[in-house]
């Protein structure tokens, strides 16, 4: 009996050590790539991966890190990727491969899961080596790493090891023989380097997802935007869109706003024709799966009437009296139709309210260089007016998306200002 007790105590004490040892010593025998160094290829891959998006502070030196990334567990600061002693200076291709494939720094420490290791593990060794060569060829910038500000033990190596034990397995993209090479290329890019699921996954309370092809969508806690589901055609699924429409979104940024505008600018606008077609084919072929639609606020005719009147005063001039939108000279939407708009009628009202409050432009891309924009209404509409207007939009124009009450607006506003 006594021996059993001692064994149990040892097991409990050893478990954390074993967990950490396991995660820090994941086996990997991937040989380095034999392909010749191709800096152009590396630059292209870095663009698709939008490395600079997270690894550049606003107004800071490109790739020198320091961007604050709000998460539900605190704020993390991206590290410096330039070949300086404070960054990736002296990192070998093997070191870099381990960071992408196993989520480990050169010293063996586990990277925080804000680094989308679930996705980067799928990047091939050849692509990782091309990225490494290109990064090492960038101008070095001295930018010491800023410590993450994670609450409690969230930032500890043990917590990260536990998270990884639950949600991460190193892997390689396995082509699906049921699909053609274009689809497979699109899947490799979308699940891997382009890390769509970093935002579009449906995350649980621990920030875990169901893998690199989890596109169920969810609230990006910390920045107050919803990344809608790519599986539901009523959210952001493009299964029923033409291939051209998907390309206009990914390449030219038509209809992209907030974080997706950033993704278009930093990543998808750079896709070459073949990869754009591949990603488009993959996204259009995703299985359809409806998201749960929560009950809206208690219906209130008075609130909707107020909303209709606000719509006439503030919105109709651009979006049309019946929400039909207005085209630009080329026939593309200058001001999008709100009748039938998914942003208006998707399950969460977060993005709609965010856009009304803070306005926005589609990204200025080579294919759409001078987008029309929407002014912020934060100083014009109080929270109850916003709720009224959003309710009118979500229940008018043939929508039945549920009303929004003032509390919901205030809650979303708090989520958005937490950044």
């Amino acid at each position, binding site marked *: 009996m006594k021996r059993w007790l001692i064994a149990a105590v040892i097991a409990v004490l050893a478990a954390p050590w074993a967990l950490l040892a396991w995660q820090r010593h994941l086996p990997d025998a991937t040989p380095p790539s034999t392909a010749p160094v191709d800096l152009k290829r590396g630059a292209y891959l870095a663009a698709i991966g939008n490395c600079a998006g997270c690894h550049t502070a606003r107004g800071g030196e490109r790739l020198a890190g320091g961007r604050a990334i709000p998460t539900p567990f605190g704020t993390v600061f991206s590290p410096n990727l330039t070949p300086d002693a404070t960054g990736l200076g002296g990192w070998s291709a093997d070191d870099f491969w381990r960071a992408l494939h196993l989520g480990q720094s050169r010293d063996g420490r586990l990277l925080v899961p804000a680094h989308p290791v679930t996705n980067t593990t799928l990047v091939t060794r050849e692509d990782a080596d091309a990225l490494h060569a290109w990064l090492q060829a960038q101008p070095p910038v001295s930018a010491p790493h800023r410590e993450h500000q994670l609450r409690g033990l969230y930032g500890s190596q043990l917590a990260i090891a536990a998270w990884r034990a639950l949600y991460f397995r190193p892997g390689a993209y396995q082509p699906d023989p049921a699909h053609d090479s274009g689809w497979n290329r699109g899947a490799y890019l979308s699940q891997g380097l382009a890390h769509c699921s970093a935002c579009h996954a449906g995350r649980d309370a621990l920030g875990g997802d169901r893998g690199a092809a989890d596109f169920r969508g969810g609230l990006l806690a910390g920045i107050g935007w919803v990344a809608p589901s790519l599986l539901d055609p009523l959210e952001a699924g493009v299964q029923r869109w033409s291939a051209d429409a998907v390309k206009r979104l990914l390449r030219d*940024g038509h209809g992209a706003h907030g974080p997706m505008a950033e993704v278009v*600018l930093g990543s998808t606008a750079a896709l070459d024709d073949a990869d754009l077609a591949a990603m488009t084919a993959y996204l259009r072929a995703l299985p359809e799966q409806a998201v749960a639609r929560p009950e809206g606020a208690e219906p209130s005719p008075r609130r909707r009437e107020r909303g209709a009147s606000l719509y006439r*005063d503030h919105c109709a001039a651009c979006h049309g009296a019946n929400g039909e939108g207005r085209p630009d000279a080329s026939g593309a939407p*200058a001001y999008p139709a709100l009748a039938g708009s998914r942003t208006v009628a998707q399950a969460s009202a977060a993005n709609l309210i965010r856009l009304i409050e803070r*306005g926005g*432009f*589609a990204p200025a891309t080579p294919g759409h*260089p*001078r987008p029309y924009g929407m002014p912020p209404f934060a100083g014009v509409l109080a929270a109850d007016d916003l709720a009224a207007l959003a309710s009118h939009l979500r229940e008018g124009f043939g929508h039945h998306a549920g009303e929004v009450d003032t509390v919901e607006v205030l809650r979303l506003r708090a989520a958005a200002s937490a950044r």
Partner: protein
Amino acid sequence: MLGGSPPPETLKPLIDYPTGGGTLRAMPSLLRTALATGLLTLTGAAHAAEPVPVPDTLAQRALACTGCHGKEGRAAPDGYYPRLAGKPAGYLYNQLLNFRDGRRDYGLMSELIAPLSDAYLKELAGHFASLDLPYPPPQPPTLAAPELARAEALVRNGEPARKLPACIACHGERLTGSQPAVPGLLGLSRDYLNGQLGAWRSGQRRAQAPDCMEKIARALTDAEINAVTQFLAGQPLPADPHPAAALATPAPMRCGVLP
């Protein structure tokens, strides 16, 4: 759109869209009715076929800005969102970059323009710079005359003993700014001017390095800032309100925004 009765003036929305209503209201009423009827028929017919494209102009694109900065960028009535119309294009462009890249800190502004390119921001800056519009009346100062005289002396002569340059050395003899990148100081509210000098002191507003305005704002006392902004906001615009073509004399300090 044109057919709806205009909203009562008291409920006029802050955001004023050029739906044509403004022009119509300024016309003699008979002509207005005739034109409105004609246009209504036209737009009605066009609407049934296909929606009317929005004008392919910068003014139309700038509506995202004038929601806060007032009709045509003349400044919002609250005085907090400053006038854009007629400021030097280089100044406006620099501010857009400063907001986008984090040297100035105002979330709404930074988020709004985050996805826009340098080229497009330059075009928008050029649009507002090209507008030649009347200015609002000055804000009567509430300070006593001696304090205002002291403020005016600071504005016109600076204080060499404290290495404080005169405002007019860069902002122009007429205080209407200098091309290409120094803004005018007139036609702005006290609150706005105080806000900016305060932001420079706290580091919330920065300019291209070396940031001379930061040094100046930090060297001024609270009382001096108050007096100077009282004086500036109280000045009417001169007959020629445009920015000077260039600095009249060599710049008194090294400054990132000066050529």
